[in-house]
């Protein structure tokens, strides 16, 4: 029987790792993810998880050890955030290029300077071009489920890419919510044993991994990462469907909320989606035709789904906790790309908000709505807007 209990997203991530039975976990603690390796080391020490827990001296070493373990052919997991993820950056490319299905839990946190331990998505968004799959959890249950899903997608023969699962710092990592822990047998059946197809250590059959590629081969190698990302779109749908069948929880790359007959659709990711849904309810009560949508999968970017979504709205209002300089936010770039060649397309307005743990309130969303309504009414509007900015102290 699945157990219903309450826990933080960090614990949920550790539980997901335990259920996935990785053979190697290499980690270095960093706020706000510290509890993930702590909890896992507890599982290992208690004999509840039969795995090698490698304590390392930095995140660069953590992901390097994961690359080694994964290349040797075992399921591998780690957790990190912010500067820790940034320190992994070099090896993050290597993991994708070597096609190693490592799963990393990311407690989404702002990047220095100034030092800030609170939530935004700049850390994992900055890794969006590495070839990794990226999932974003709205709540603690999703943090657990998406890690299991990430393993299944990552290890699929058609994909073989590493994956990160983001959940917002403190808003989720340190907040207790009801979480259903699935049965071990059910997870075993869902995930199966990890059988590496291409990567293994066998002295009788030596291979070289992470080799040098001359210009004659490098481009093709990069293309296979591109192709694997494209393949992942279909695989993710399949895995979502199977997950729903087994565990009853439904996931979609782009999850819509009250979008029928909506004029303005607010699009976001992560925990902010909860706030936005409530805000949409509030607007509907006032007769404003608003809807919400959330990206559960950010890489591969769900272009098709986004185009479908765009057909339903006159204005797409993006609410994002990251900055891509000269552009606005990363989502703005992605949405613009997805919609640019459509004959009929909604206006897209970008809102940067909630950086470094700033609360996102209804007042902020009102500010965004006002600008979105300008766009709706054909008035002039700014494409990129910083919401909740304290202009008086600038």
């Amino acid at each position, binding site marked *: 029987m699945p157990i219903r209990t309450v826990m933080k997203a960090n614990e949920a991530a550790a539980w997901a790792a335990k259920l996935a039975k990785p053979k190697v976990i290499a980690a270095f603690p960093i706020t706000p993810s510290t509890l993930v390796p702590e909890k896992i080391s507890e599982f290992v020490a208690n004999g509840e998880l039969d795995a090698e827990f490698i304590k390392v001296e930095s995140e660069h070493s953590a992901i390097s050890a994961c690359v080694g373990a994964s290349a040797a052919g075992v399921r591998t997991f780690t957790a990190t955030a912010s500067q820790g993820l940034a320190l992994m950056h070099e090896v993050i490319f290597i993991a994708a*290029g*070597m*096609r*190693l299905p490592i799963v990393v839990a990311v407690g989404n946190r702002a990047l220095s300077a100034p030092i800030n331990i609170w939530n935004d998505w700049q850390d994992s968004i900055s890794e969006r071009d590495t070839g990794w799959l990226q999932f974003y959890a709205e709540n603690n249950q999703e943090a657990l489920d998406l890690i299991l899903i990430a393993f299944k997608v990552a290890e699929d023969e058609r994909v*073989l890419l590493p994956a990160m699962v983001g959940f917002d710092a403190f808003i989720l990592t340190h907040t207790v919510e009801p979480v259903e822990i699935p049965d071990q047998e059910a997870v075993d059946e869902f995930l199966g044993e990890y059988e590496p197809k*291409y*990567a293994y250590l066998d002295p009788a*059959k*030596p*291979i*070289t*991994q*992470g*080799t*040098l*590629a001359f210009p*004659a*081969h490098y481009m*093709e*190698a990069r293309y*296979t990462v591109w192709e*694997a990302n494209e393949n992942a779109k279909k695989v993710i749908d399949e895995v979502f469907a199977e997950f729903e069948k087994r565990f009853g929880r439904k996931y979609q790359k782009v999850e819509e909320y009250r979008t029928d007959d909506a004029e303005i659709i607010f699009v976001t990711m992560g925990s902010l989606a909860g706030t936005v849904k409530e805000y949409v309810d509030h607007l509907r009560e006032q007769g404003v035709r608003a809807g919400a949508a959330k990206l559960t999968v950010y890489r591969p970017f769900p272009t098709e789904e986004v185009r479908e979504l765009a057909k339903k709205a006159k204005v797409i209002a993006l609410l994002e906790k990251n900055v891509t300089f000269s552009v606005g936010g990363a989502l703005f770039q992605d949405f613009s790309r997805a919609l640019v060649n459509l004959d009929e397309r909604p206006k897209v307005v970008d809102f940067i908000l909630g950086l470094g743990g700033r609360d996102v309130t209804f007042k902020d969303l009102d500010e965004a709505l006002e600008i979105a309504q300008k766009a709706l009414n054909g008035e002039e509007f700014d494409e990129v807007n910083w919401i909740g900015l304290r202009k008086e102290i600038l």
Partner: protein
Amino acid sequence: MAESPFKADIERVQKEYSEKMTPGAIAYIPGSSVVNKTGSWRVFMPEFNRDKCTRCFLCYIYCPEPAIYLDEEGYPVFDYDYCKGCGICANECPVDAIVMVRETK
């Protein structure tokens, strides 16, 4: 100079690599180093004096490449296709039987 003991069919290796791209660019056939000679960027090269050598094997043990192997009599042989000129062998040799000299054409 004696021939390298690392024999491989260069043509076969080259053909295999240009014909198929494996996920993760894994090289299945050992021997790619036969094609990629790594000694070409060397600036200094070890020069060996057989008369001084005591056949202690230290150079052979310490060469990181390993570009030194031993002939039938136990004397070191340097494989200049792969020697990167780091000078470790010369440093380790207790009797100065190896000196590093500037690479000349």
